[in-house]
């Protein structure tokens, strides 16, 4: 009853891998965009902001379909990537990671942006007068001080990526061992007669992963705060 079947294990491992890759690849990009939005004024800033938040308000199935049109085998970007770089997203776990990364991006960026906005700009000025070039000011002052927000964004993004369903199943389908994550495995099991116990087992696993992520983020945040304020 509590024993996980090989298919369930595979789904769990795949989910963890998809969410981890999505988060790790999205984080540097998220930090860069959060910094731009927090610290720079540029033409089209409102459009960039809206574009990032789009996956949050668009139906996930619509995002998935747009991904399929763009990154599918015959999609504009997908065909080019497949022909020139040999990178294929459609119906692969990498496509699931792409879908999860895009869906979780707004949740990743927001806490990072807020924490960068909260960094005292006067400290950045002080660093400048001490000879730090702008990118070093960022690396030695802004980023370390914004670290709690970065970790919070990563955990939030990871949790969202683990739970992503609509865009993923639309874009890369539900192939056991390749694109069947915990969410799509639960969905399949609910559709299957006698699948209830297995579905419940995976639900329990989801709860454990979500709890672990939240506890970890709390721990990181508290550690970072202690580092910031001495003591």
């Amino acid at each position, binding site marked *: 009853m509590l024993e996980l079947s090989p298919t369930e294990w595979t789904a769990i491992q795949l989910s963890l891998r998809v969410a981890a890759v999505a988060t790790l690849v999205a984080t540097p990009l998220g930090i860069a965009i959060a910094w731009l939005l927090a610290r720079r004024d540029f033409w089209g800033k409102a459009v960039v902001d809206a574009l990032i938040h789009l996956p949050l308000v668009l139906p996930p199935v619509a995002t998935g379909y747009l991904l399929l049109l763009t990154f599918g085998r015959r999609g504009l970007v997908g065909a080019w990537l497949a022909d020139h770089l040999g990178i294929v997203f459609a119906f692969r776990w990498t496509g699931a990671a792409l879908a999860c990364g895009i869906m979780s991006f707004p949740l990743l960026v927001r806490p990072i942006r807020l924490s960068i906005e909260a960094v005292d700009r006067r400290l950045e000025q002080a660093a400048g007068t001490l*000879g730090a070039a702008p990118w*070093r000011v960022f690396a030695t002052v802004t980023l370390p001080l914004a670290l709690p927000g970065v970790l919070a964004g990563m955990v939030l993004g990871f949790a969202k990526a683990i739970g992503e369903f609509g865009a993923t199943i639309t874009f890369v389908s539900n192939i056991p061992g390749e694109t069947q994550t915990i969410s799509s495995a639960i969905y399949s099991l609910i559709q299957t007669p006698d699948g209830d116990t297995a579905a419940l087992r995976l639900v329990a696993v989801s709860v454990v992963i979500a709890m672990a992520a939240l506890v970890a983020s709390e721990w990181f945040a508290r550690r970072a705060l202690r580092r910031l304020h001495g*003591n």
Partner: protein
Amino acid sequence: MLRVEVSKQLGEFSIEASFASEGRVTGLFGASGAGKTSLINMIAGLLRPDRGSIAIDTETLDDTANRVHVPAHRRRIGYVFQDARLFPHLDVRQNLDYGRRMNRLADDPAQRAHVTDLLDIGGLLDRRPGQLSGGERQRVALGRALLAQPRLLLLDEPLGSLDEERKEEILPYLMRLRDEANVPMVYVSHDAGEMRQLATQVVILKRGRVIAFGGGEILPLAASPA
């Protein structure tokens, strides 16, 4: 030799100031709102003048006519802010070392020992800024600016946030600095007493304009600001 000739519009307020000073300590004196901080922010490169030029010796730092603006991090001008602005995530030792690292200067233990002795901060090295008193924080900020080996040191009311007792504690360090550190300074204050003790040349500012330039004798005798 510091030469400043700038104009800057800041909302309703405008600064139009020019002076040249060769003093060890140039005092910028005036009431709050006279434009002292904006003026030294321009010298530091944190604020860009609308028109004019700023130069140290023969090196031009700003010259709007020729579109010259050296960014703050390449000016080698130290800045001690009224609110110290120590980095909260670094301990005192790392704060002191920051400017040396950023300017890629060689490690110089003798210089570090000299400055920590001069400012009596050797006992604070392992503390975080959050664990320092106001006076200690200001001394560390002085040390941090000095150890970046600036060619000019700007001090913006470094005693402004301290009570009388703490001011008396810091003032002797500033005088030692003037006499031993061998870095020219620009000292901003609205306190005539402080100015008289520290400055070798005085620029008096009023509503963004220079109204007097000379030695300590041009300062008002009463402790009240101009």
